[in-house]
């Protein structure tokens, strides 16, 4: 009797397993739910779930089942989680880790097992380089710098520019170099390049040299504290030209430290949380505010983007075959996601860069720039 019961149970389990495999599409989420950057993973998870409330959780007439595995903000755990998602949970695609280090650990496994993986926010260029199954939903520093250079030339009509970048930060150095390249390609001229170091408080020597060269525009692709102090001292030293910075400017400290000196500062940003660029973006912002009572964050928005890109690709592929999904992701073009229209090229996302300006102690939307 007992044996019979066991057999029946086994058959039942098998049947239910087969049944669920037919009814649902399993997508893995390999995220930082605990550990050093738990906030990133949790915000992304929040964004994914929020967007499912808006667009629904079905594709190809089947329910999308999310399988969440915590990678504990750790490279080794991220690799283990990827293997587990593919081998044990049989997912057809994965939303990958938030940070580049973990994404670099997860990528090769997906490449080998031919399962597409998309990260919401990993910005290191190496993440997608030379890989077929690895994608990201955010743009890269070179793209942001190119957008800044285009905006400086076409919209601000700057002929000459100076760059003051932080040599202790890869992010700042990269932005400065790519800005220079693109600005000169567009017929402008970078007349002075000066550097500073994270933690510096005095920039008067660099700024005096810059002001002496009299550029139309000063590009400061640094982090908020340095940007605030640089603006302050530049204005005190009599600089009257335009100052342009990047997404590192986005922190309340910019205003508390910079005060009236940061008025008129332009910066490039990943998105503007106060204003949707499209219908779905606006819906996301409204629902987020309603649910959490505060402005939405970039991580959640990019998490939602990663989910939307995947679902759209599955729909266009018309199948759950990972190789077909991979093709469809790479073919993504002008898809409306939370942060604007996205196109995927060589695994990286190309999407409009938001330009904002400081007015009255807060960021005000100016326009979006798509690099041509």
């Amino acid at each position: 009797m007992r044996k019979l019961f066991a057999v029946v149970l086994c058959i039942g389990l098998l049947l239910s397993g087969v049944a669920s495999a037919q009814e649902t599409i399993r997508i893995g989420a390999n995220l930082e739910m605990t550990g050093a950057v738990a906030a990133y993973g949790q915000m992304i998870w929040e964004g994914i779930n929020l967007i499912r409330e808006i667009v629904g959780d079905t594709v190809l007439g089947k329910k999308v089942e999310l399988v969440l595995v915590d990678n504990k903000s750790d490279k080794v755990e991220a690799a283990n989680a990827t293997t587990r998602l593919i081998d044990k949970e049989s997912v057809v695609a994965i939303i990958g880790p938030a940070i580049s280090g973990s994404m670099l650990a997860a990528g090769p496994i997906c490449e080998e097992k031919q399962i597409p993986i998309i990260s919401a926010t990993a910005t290191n260029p190496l993440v997608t380089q030379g890989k077929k199954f690895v994608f990201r939903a955010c743009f890269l520093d070179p793209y942001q710098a190119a957008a800044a250079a285009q905006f400086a030339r076409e919209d601000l009509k700057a002929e000459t520019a100076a760059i003051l970048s932080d040599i202790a930060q890869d992010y700042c150095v990269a932005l400065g170099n790519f800005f220079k390249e693109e600005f000169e390609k567009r017929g402008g001229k970078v007349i002075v390049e000066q550097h500073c170091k994270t933690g510096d408080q005095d920039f008067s020597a660099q700024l005096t040299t810059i002001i002496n060269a009299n550029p139309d525009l000063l590009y400061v692709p640094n982090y908020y504290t340095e940007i605030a102090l640089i603006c302050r001292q530049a204005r005190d030293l009599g600089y009257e030209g335009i100052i342009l910075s990047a997404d590192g400017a986005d922190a309340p400290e910019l205003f508390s430290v910079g005060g009236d000196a940061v008025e008129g500062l332009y910066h490039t940003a990943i998105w503007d949380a106060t204003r949707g660029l499209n219908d779905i973006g606006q819906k996301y912002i409204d629902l987020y505010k309603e649910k959490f009572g505060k402005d939405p964050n970039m991580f959640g928005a990019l998490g939602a983007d990663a989910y939307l890109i995947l679902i759209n690709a599955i729909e266009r592929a018309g199948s759950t075959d990972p190789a077909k999904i991979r093709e469809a992701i790479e073919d993504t073009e002008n898809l409306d996601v939370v942060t604007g229209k996205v196109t995927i090229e060589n695994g990286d996302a190309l999407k409009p860069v938001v330009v904002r300006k400081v007015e009255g102690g807060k960021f005000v939307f100016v326009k979006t720039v798509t690099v041509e």
Partner: protein
Amino acid sequence: MSWVTFFQQLMNGISVGSLYALLAIGYTLVYGILGLINFAHSDVFMLGTYFAFFMMVIFLLPWWLSVLIGVALCAVVGMSIERVAYRPLRNAPRISALITAVGVSFFIENFGLVTVGARPKGFPRPDLMKNVYVLLGARIQGVTFWVPVISILILFVLFSIVYRTKIGIAMRAVSKDMETTRLMGVDVDRIILYTFALGSALAGIGGVLWACKYPQINPLMGIFPGWKAFTAAVVGGVGNVVGAMLGGFIIGLAEILIVAFFPGLTGYRDAFVFTILIVFLLVRPGGLMGEAVREKV
């Protein structure tokens, strides 16, 4: 480089230098009397800015009153540090006191990180310090003009205390020979307490003026200015108040001019300052104005 630009760079250098000078005086004062480099000096400097900041932002007191209270609180903190950390080690080897000083410094920094957080705050500045004046084509901030004035004023006050008052006589006596001074019936511990109060008040004033020039305060803001001021004190001759001022100006100018003339060396700005420190310690440990001293820490 045009004449005006050079003059502007010179002014930039003097502006930074005068702040180092002010801070260096505090180091040198305590060293001159106790023979101890008070590494917590740069953290009292930081505390001064926070005290004044909170007086202004939370208690909404006027600027001058906030600064006054901030400086007074610094003096209290200085005395507490001496009472708690240095007095029990008065007769211990000098190295113990030095290590304790470093420990106190770390303690204050991390205490700050835990209580007020690492995110920087904007320091409100009065117009007097904020306004920009144009002199011979160079643009000079109010604070650049006031810092040397205040420093010289402080020098006068210091000299009159040290050479004209009874406490001053006692201070000089302690610096010459602590044991004999004690035998003469002077309360040595009290005199040392006063010295710390004076030095810490100077740190507080320096902190507030620093924040007027660089209106961004955070719990670790004292570290680099502290090291540079310490270098200035060594260059000028530790223990020598006028030397400390001179050293401050030299360090400030050196730092600005290296960036102005050799933009490629910007990243070595701090390294350059500390190279000066090492060279002085090797070649002329007594500093520019100091006498040949027997030992140094």
